[in-house]
């Protein structure tokens, strides 16, 4: 049997894999941005316990956090076209598969980020709110200038973990035909008849990205510590 692993083949795979990095980044960026926007809304629903919406949000979060992402991918990929046809008579089977993949990750991130935001806001002591009122700030001013910065600092570690987890979770997108890093690794393996090498190269790329993300957010976290220190002194 031929060589199982070759450093030369692994290094050759790097530039080819990087061609598909944009697909991975697209999934992560869109899912994170929309997750932040709609996750904030979800957090507000849960924090204020808005009737009916609170119950719907709770069920939604339980489903999204309680099921593997692969199930959610399949549910969206096969379920959304069926739903669209039955409810609107619209056939969306020909839509780009990346739309369905990104939609699944967006729905997943809305739940996770929503809970991160809710936890972060709850982590800020009540005394901070009272202090804001006591110096004559309005509710909105207190939230924007006092609560939100501290909530961001409190939620940053969890958000970092979620972001790194999302990057790794995109590795399942190839199952539905997306040519992300893992999809590209499989193609290289098919063409070269050596699957191990591109997977090693893909693993290295993922590790580098994860380390860079943790380093960057660690720096932001430290900067927040400094600012927080000034507010209190």
């Amino acid at each position, binding site marked *: *049997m*031929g060589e199982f692993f070759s450093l030369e083949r692994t290094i050759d795979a790097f530039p080819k894999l990087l061609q598909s990095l944009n697909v991975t980044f697209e999934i992560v960026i869109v899912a994170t941005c929309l997750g932040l926007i*709609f996750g904030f*809304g979800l957090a*507000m*629903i849960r*924090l*204020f*316990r*808005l009737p009916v*919406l609170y119950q719907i949000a709770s069920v939604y979060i339980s489903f999204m956090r309680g099921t593997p992402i692969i199930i959610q991918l399949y549910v969206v*990929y*096969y379920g959304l*076209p*069926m739903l669209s046809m039955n409810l*609107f008579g619209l*056939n*969306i*089977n*020909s*839509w*780009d*598969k*990346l*739309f369905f993949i990104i939609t699944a990750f967006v729905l997943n991130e809305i739940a996770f980020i929503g809970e991160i935001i809710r936890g972060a*806001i*709850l982590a*800020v*002591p*009540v005394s*901070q*709110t009272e202090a*804001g*009122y006591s110096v004559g700030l309005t*509710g*909105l001013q*207190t*939230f924007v200038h006092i*609560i939100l910065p501290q909530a961001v600092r409190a939620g940053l570690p969890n958000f970092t973990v979620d972001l790194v987890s999302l990057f790794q979770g995109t590795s399942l997108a*190839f*199952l*539905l*035909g997306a*040519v992300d890093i893992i*999809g590209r690794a*499989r*193609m290289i*393996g*098919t*063409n070269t*008849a050596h*699957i191990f090498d591109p997977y090693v190269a893909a693993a290295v790329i993922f590790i580098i990205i994860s380390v860079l993300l943790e380093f960057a957010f660690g720096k932001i976290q430290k900067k927040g510590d400094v600012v927080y220190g000034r507010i209190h002194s």
Partner: protein
Amino acid sequence: MKSIILRKPTVIIFVTIFMAVLLSSCGGNANSSSSESSGDPSGSDPAVIPVGVCSTAKPDAYIDEDGKLTGYDVEVLKAIDELLPQYELDLQTMEFSEILNSLATSRVLAGSQEFEWNAERANTYLFGEVPLIGYNTFIITLDDPQYENITGLADLAGKSTLASQGGSVEAIINSWNEENPDKEIKKVISGGTSEDYVNFLNNRVVDFIIANEQNFVRWTEDFNVDNWVFHEQAKIYDSNSYILFEKNQVQLQQDFDDALQELSDNGKLAELSIEFYGKDYTVH
């Protein structure tokens, strides 16, 4: 909720806007044309037919070094597309099992990845009637004296073989075990990649594999294997591979069959077989 200080009416307004944006964004974000995916052509525009193919099944369907989707199945579909102006084939790459799932849910209307006929598939999908290529499968083992005189599965009772999920080998072994409970053969289920077949057999995770001559030639060449035996006397059965269709696409199947027959008659299928498999394995 004590630490949040936004007033409830403000939040209600925000949430209403958020729900409106969420619902409206569900309807508006398409990345491709809104062409009809119907098997019934009408009007002057060709009907777009979504077709499922693999992208990591060399040389049946794969993406080459230049990023082009090619392979025997893919090139046959492209040739069919040229012969059927009433259709425009939209080749969508996906995993092998997803082709079957997509056919079952009408996400695609046709699929091609060397599908052999079996009764289970025939219940769920519509098979083409013109063969894509000959797919006679044989037993392949390591070069071991215990396998020297085998003539079929009966000589391998109690042994194990590799079966990919949803693949035809799984159906073959299930059927064999039902009919021959005293000569049961064990299945080891895997993703069914070329690496699986080569590694599992070479590392004796399985005792034998079932494959056709095309795959035997390719795997032994690609993976530098020199200790396999292709048991020509141990044919599993005569078989062909076919294009699969969504259950109701009778007209589409008939049109595809007519085109495929034309490609067979004019030698195009044989030419593609030689290009991708090194030999003419087509059915005449």
